[in-house]
């Protein structure tokens, strides 16, 4: 895995995503709602001709959705055959974080985030949480809309 990570913010908390899984980052001005889809699905966006489902990380983390701003970004990620966008409040930085700098998250955090945080890295005085993308979008065989 590359050491490059995309840093994004959700509700002023900083998260990182492995850059090797990121296809692109796009600004966000709203999505086509999919009635009946799970609550965290913000909808569908068309990015470079591809229709991509967007998962709102705010909702994933139990926060209320907010209207899109100029800073809102969709981080389009791929996992095997699936391509899903993650909606974040902002995503600007790309950081180099050596694999050794990541540590398992504290048990409490695992408990409270349902395992969505895979690891934690301390960079300077910042604490960055590595998001488990697969957990966020759910396993493919796992039947949805709960």
């Amino acid at each position, binding site marked *: 895995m590359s050491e490059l990570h995309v840093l994004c913010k959700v509700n002023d908390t900083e998260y990182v995503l492995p850059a090797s899984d990121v296809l692109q980052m796009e600004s966000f001005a709203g999505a*086509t709602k999919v009635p*009946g889809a799970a609550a965290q699905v913000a909808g569908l966006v*068309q990015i470079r001709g591809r*229709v991509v489902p967007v998962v709102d990380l705010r909702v994933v983390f139990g926060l209320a959705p907010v209207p899109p701003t100029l800073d809102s970004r969709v981080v389009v990620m791929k996992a095997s055959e699936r391509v899903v966008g993650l909606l974040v409040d902002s995503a600007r930085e790309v950081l180099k974080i050596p694999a050794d700098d990541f540590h398992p998250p504290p048990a409490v955090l695992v408990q409270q985030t349902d395992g969505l945080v895979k690891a934690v890295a301390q960079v300077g005085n910042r604490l960055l949480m590595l998001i488990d993308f697969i957990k966020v*979008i759910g396993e493919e065989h796992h039947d949805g809309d709960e």
Partner: protein
Amino acid sequence: MSDGFEASEFITGFIAEAEEHLTLANANLLSLDQAAAKGQPTPRQVRELFRSLHTIKGLAAMVGVEPIVDIAHAMETVLREADRAAGQLPAGSLELLLRGTRAIGQRVTALAKRKTVATAPAALIEALNALRQSGSSRPEAAVGTTLPDELWTRLGSAEREQLVQGLTAGRRGVVATFIPAPERANAGVNITSVRERMAAVAEIVKVVPQSIPASDSAPGGLAFALILLTDATDPVIAEASSSDVSALRPIALQAATAAVASGQEGEDGDGEPTDSDDDSNPRQQGVVRVEVARLDDALEKLSALVVTQFRLTRALAALRAAGTDTRALALVVADNGRQLRDLRSSIMRARMVPVAEVLERVPLLLRGLSRATGKQARLELRTGKTELDKAVAERIFPAVVHLIRNAVDHALESPAERRAAGKPEMGLITVVAVERSDNQLELTISDDGRGVDAAAVARRAGVPVPATDDGLLELLTRPGLSTKSEVTTTSGRGVGMDVVKRIAVDELRGALAMTTIRGQGTTFVLRVPLSITIVDAFSFVSGGETFVVPVAMVEEIQELDPSRTVRGPDRRRVVRATPDRRQVARGTDMIERRGEAVPLLRLDEIFGLAGDAVAGRKVIIVRRNGEPFAFAVDRMLGQQEVVVRPLEDRLVRVDGISGTTDLGDGKPTLVLDLVALGGKLSAGPGPGRERARA
């Protein structure tokens, strides 16, 4: 001429046929050009080109399009003479023939668009006619005949010239054989009498005595070969030579350099060149041209059948519920369902066209481009046997044209530059089509030109130089950027890249990728689905959102008439609205329709959208298993053909939504399956999804 023409179906047929023959003509022109460049003779191409134009002329005359008749006639005359000169075209004729073909093409297009057809360009006709006069001075030396060597060598030079000139003038050449025999001599038939009789129906070039193995029919072991020029028919000649028609051998013109033996020259009253290579176009055999609209019509009829199948299934279920033994019937119904699916795939297959056919105009395009730019380019075209849907083919071709045009216009350097760069003067453009396992066609278009100047592109776009080819492609495909001429001329890439992207990615739901190396060339990879689902659909608004629904699914659209709406008693809570939205009430309202009570469902409520009091002015009625449902929506927007892309990710796989489409605003629009939605609602909020439909 086309104005006020009544028989429009003839015009449609004419356009289809004319286009087919124009395609053939273009292919032959190209092949002519290539052969001519190598100094090869081109009798076959000339003959086929002649046939195409002859057919176009005939068809155009039938539908009364004089300008096309005139152009085709002038071209045909040049070709007829070339054919008689063993396929030797006068200098400069290729250019004129290309122009002529183009001129016909333009007029066919005008006709197709119901525009006025321009008169034949006088300058072109004149130039073509002038060709004929100058063409008669072609060198004789290059021409020979198909006469067997043992006979040809027996001819003196004057006799050879006599034969060639006769053939060139359009007379038929025939070798007849007379075998003397005692009983024939007794009947007064000998070579002298045959000569006399023959002189009355043919010009005798030479009579060559030949020794043949002695047999019952040729007891003397001697035969006379009569080399003839004639306008008479074979039976007449056979009679005059006291032999059978099958014993006659035709003589045709042939370029002296060509070692190939030409075939038969058949019976042809109007002097039209005849088939010598029947196998030259095998795919023409057993082929019927069908308008795509007819296949669509067949598909539509098929969907009606599928609906009937649903009704059958439902009736069957009712029988079973009543205690009847339906096992035998169920088997028949299941068979029927399978056959319907097979039929559907057959119809879909009928829509497929070979990629090779789609790309067959590419060599011609390249030829025109090299001529226009003065750059030399070689084409490598590898298409294999892949087939793709006609609708995809029609959409993808313009993208391919764009890419090739860019490659020649901007990517390939001038011959001098290439020489300086140590490259061969002739550029190379490669077009490869490969079918991928995921039902996608991969089209690779590469050049060995200068590569894209990322810095120039970035400067133009006012952004930092992209680090990757993907980033560069993204810049190149930005609308607006591509039209700047500076980029076009300095970046080696440009015009219409946004169009290519729009076609490949947005319209066809495919992908576009690029790799480029400075000084070495650029490769574009287009990936498009082999077939797409194109559906005629209604678009409408409900709860402020736009949706589409396939027309085939809709039984009726009507105004919502409040006076005929009945509010049902049960207003239970909806359980399945999206959790982050308010839980909305759903009533069991009904509308009365032709004596039938139809449940009225408000789509905005079902979908948890922001409905308002005035919403629900239109009603879309669908039927599921014979049971009608009415969906109230805000307003109808229109009807159009849309490309449906299924929603694959499980996050967005929802009953009642069959996919998305792009209505042109760059945003996905949901394609609704109102029939499934109705089914889901009538099944209630029970567990599980709707049972898989047959």
